[in-house]
C-alpha cells in the first residue's frame, strides 16, 4: 500500500481510536483497576497496599458513572454515592487496624507479618 493511501487511513484509525465513547471510559476503568491490582501484588508496605485497594475501588466507580451517563439513568450515580460512604468507613477501620498492628508488632511490612506461616 502506498504511503499516500496508508497515511490518511492511519489518521482515520487514530481519530476513531481517539473518539471518546462509553468504551473509552471502560478501558480507562479496566486499566486503573489492573494498576491497582498490580500494586497490591507488588508492594510490601501495608499502607501502600491499602492505597492500591482504594485505587481499585475508584476504578470501579468510574465505570459505574460512565454506564449511568450513557444510559440516561441515575442509579449508577446513587451507587457511587453509597460506595463513597462505605469507602470512607472502610478506610477509617482499616487504618485503625494497621495502627493497632504496628503497636503490637512494630512493623507493617507484609513479609515480616508471617505468624501464620508453617
Amino acid at each position, binding site marked *: 500500500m502506498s504511503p499516500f493511501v496508508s497515511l490518511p487511513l492511519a489518521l482515520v484509525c487514530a481519530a476513531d481510536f481517539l473518539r471518546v465513547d462509553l*468504551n473509552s471510559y471502560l478501558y480507562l476503568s479496566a486499566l486503573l483497576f*489492573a494498576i491497582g491490582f498490580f*500494586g497490591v501484588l507488588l508492594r510490601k508496605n501495608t499502607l501502600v497496599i491499602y492505597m492500591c485497594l482504594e485505587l481499585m475501588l475508584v476504578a470501579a466507580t468510574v465505570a459505574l458513572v460512565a454506564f449511568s451517563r450513557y444510559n440516561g439513568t*441515575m442509579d449508577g*450515580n446513587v451507587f457511587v454515592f453509597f460506595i*463513597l460512604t462505605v469507602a470512607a468507613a472502610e478506610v477509617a477501620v482499616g487504618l485503625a487496624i494497621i495502627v493497632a498492628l504496628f503497636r503490637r508488632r512494630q512493623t507493617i511490612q507484609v513479609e515480616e507479618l508471617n505468624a501464620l506461616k508453617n
Partner: protein
Amino acid sequence: MSDTLFHLFAVLTVACALGVVLNKNAVASALCLLVCLTGIAGLFVLLDAFLLAVLTVFVYAGAVVALFLFIIMLLDMQGGNRKPFTKSSIVAGAAAAGLLCTGLYSFLVRGHIESPVLATTKVGGSSLRAYAELLFTTYLLPVQIVGFLLLIAMLGVIVLSKKFENLEDIK
C-alpha cells in the same frame, strides 16, 4: 473539546496511578493518589456527575488522603534500606495485571458491547433533587443501612484504638 479533556484527565490519572504503585516513598505515593483522585473528579465532571466530583474531592482527596498521610507520619516508617519490592514480585504482579487487562479487553472487544450514543435525556446528575428523590424513595433502606454501618465503623475504630491496660479484662 471534551474529548481532549478526557484524554488529558485519562493520562493524568493513569500516570499518577503508576506513581502510587512505583514510588518508594509512602508520602509520595499518597500525594500521587491525591492527584489521581483529582483527575477522576475531572472525569466525573465530564460525565455530568458534578455532585460526585465534588464529593470525591471532599471525601477521598480531602479526608481519606489526609488520613493516610497522618498515619504515615504517625508510624514514621521510611522503608530504610529495605527494597520496596523484589524481582519475583514484579514478574508475578505484572503477569497477573497483564492477564487481568487482557481478560477485560477481550471482554469489551469480543463481547461486542455496542457503545450507546450519549443519552440525550439529561438525567440531572448535577441536581441534588434527583439524588434526593432516589435516595428517599427507592434506596431508603440502603441509606438506613449505610448510616448504621457508619455508626458501627465509628464504634469499631474507637474500640480498636483504645489501649487496654491488661488484656485479661477483655478475655
